[in-house]
């Protein structure tokens, strides 16, 4: 009887979540005149290289986040409780600072006329910028790692800090060397944190357009840029088709990753 309390929300969700997605579907399968067409989908073949570049950069960035972030999360979770609070606060400050500002701050730092180059130029006594970083794939990956590292660290931290302290002792008692303690016990036990961390980094990395615009220097395009460009040019049908494919790809990979975690569907709570 009380489930009626959910009615406004269900109404809202159908109207503003489901219906808009159906409209995307509609746009993806119609032409400008509004009649049915599969040409948008067919034309996606042209965007294949962009898709691949986006996936490549996102996967590399996610992997780097994991490699850097796991030890950080682990170190925080194993430090004194009163220190943990401070470290988490230090992670959350950049996380809650607007993404545009964070991305922009890297650009300002690494630009040809930026702070790093100006210091290097004085050091080497030249008038030419020493490091051309902006406009490379490396810069975009660095930007992704910089922007999204906290999203990797926090869920892993939450997961590791919940592991019973006796697990370390029990594993080592039963014959695990320190390395084996990690690989046989702690890593498997923190897998759910790793998976939510990977999701939370991978999804925004694949779909970003601001990072590639600022740090890529306009030299190459990611899938997010393509969608944005189509949207600006009024080419809504092809934009919708690309969005649709991206959404399906991401939902599939999320579903696959969720298979690996415990079926705690509702317990997605992680941060803050």
């Amino acid at each position, binding site marked *: 009887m009380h489930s009626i309390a959910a009615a406004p929300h269900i109404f809202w969700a159908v109207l503003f979540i489901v219906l808009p997605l159906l409209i995307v579907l509609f746009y993806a399968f119609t032409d400008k005149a509004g009649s049915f067409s599969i040409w948008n989908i067919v034309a996606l073949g042209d965007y294949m290289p962009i898709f691949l570049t986006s996936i490549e950069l996102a996967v590399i960035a996610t992997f780097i986040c994991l490699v850097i972030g796991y030890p950080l999360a682990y170190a925080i979770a194993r430090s004194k409780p009163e220190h943990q609070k401070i470290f988490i606060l230090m992670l959350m400050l950049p996380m809650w600072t607007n993404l545009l500002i964070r991305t922009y701050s890297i650009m300002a730092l690494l630009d040809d006329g930026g702070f790093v180059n100006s210091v290097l130029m004085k050091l080497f006594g030249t008038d030419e910028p020493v490091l051309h970083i902006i406009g490379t794939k490396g810069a975009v990956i660095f930007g992704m790692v910089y922007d999204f590292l906290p999203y990797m660290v926090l869920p892993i931290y939450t997961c590791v800090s919940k592991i*019973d302290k*006796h*697990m370390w*002792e*029990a*594993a*080592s*008692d*039963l*014959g*695990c*060397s*320190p390395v*084996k*303690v990690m690989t*046989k*016990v702690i890593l*498997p*036990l923190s*897998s759910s944190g790793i998976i939510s961390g990977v999701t939370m980094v991978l999804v925004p990395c694949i779909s970003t357009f601001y990072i590639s615009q600022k740090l890529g220097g306009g030299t190459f395009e990611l899938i997010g840029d393509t969608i944005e460009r189509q949207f600006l040019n009024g080419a809504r049908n092809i934009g919708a088709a690309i969005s649709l494919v991206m959404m399906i790809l991401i939902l599939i990979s999320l579903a696959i990753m969720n298979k690996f975690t415990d079926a705690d569907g509702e317990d997605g709570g992680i941060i803050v």
Partner: protein
Amino acid sequence: MEKLIELKGISKSYDGEKVIDSMNLYIRDGEFITFLGPSGCGKTTTLRIIGGFETADEGSLYFDGVEISDVPAYKRHINTVFQKYALFPHLNVYENIAFPLRLKKTSEDEIKQRVTEMLKMVKLSGFENKSVSTLSGGQQQRVAIARALISHPKVLLLDEPLGALDLKLRKDMQNELKSIQQEIGITFIYVTHDQEEALSMSDTVVVIADGQIQQIGTPTDIYNEPKNAFVADFIGESNIVDGIMLEDKRVRFSSHVFDCVDGGFAENEPVDVVIRPEDVDVVAPEKGMLTGKVTGVTFKGVHYEIIVDIKGFKWMIQSTDYVAPDSFIGLYIEPDAIHIMKKSKYSGMFGDYSSFSDEMDYISDADAVEEF
């Protein structure tokens, strides 16, 4: 029997507070030894030092004659059953027990055979594929024991393993642990604060308080011949009164001179006298060596617990005969019921049953009110 484990001058402090104070102890091969003491006495820390989870600040630890103070836990032939079991939640029952064997790259056939054997020993056959989180406390306990024993350690450490179980289950597990220990014949080092558990299971009991060993002995020794007031009070019920040792086998306390069986004290040496409540006979006042007024009687099933005021000191007596409250009774004590102890820093802290009386309850209630 040989010394399997030896602690020499082990000390350990946390934040400047000494939890273990230069402890010396040896543990023989194949014995069931219990560290008994109140919480915070250092018994768990001692166990953790033996297990390799803590390092002592001073002193050294020997295993089979070889110093192992710096050997990490995973290289010691010592396994532990943790207080909250510490089963791995990502592995099922079978894999939890097989865990140590997998590390050693044991063949699949042998793993299967040994895990099955272990499950049979802890009476969990058929539970192989269950998730550990679905097991009851008692079942988790058994898995933890099986997992700790499967790699044939020389010593098993048990840190209050039965603390989380209910009374009935605890009694069953006590018997089972004892029979497992006898079956496989290895050393068990058991930590508990429950004196009954310690007395009923152990070959040797080590009573620990304030980071120091108070007494080592068989359960009977510890009960019958406590070394000081702390041990006497902690193990069972005791009336502990001040006495003067007049000469060998003659002691005076409560203004009466008694014959006893102990000797070897200086003439007129002040001592602590222990009399167990069950060793006192209730007689008519005129026949008693001591007389007192009954201030409280509680029925305990097998016997009555009687509190008697003798010259301001409250004694506890256990008797199968009922006596009326406020009546006067006489006490008769056999010489061999009187145990004499040297004075220690624990003298005067224990052994008075004042807090059992109604009068005392009244006073402490008044205190409680004042606090508000």
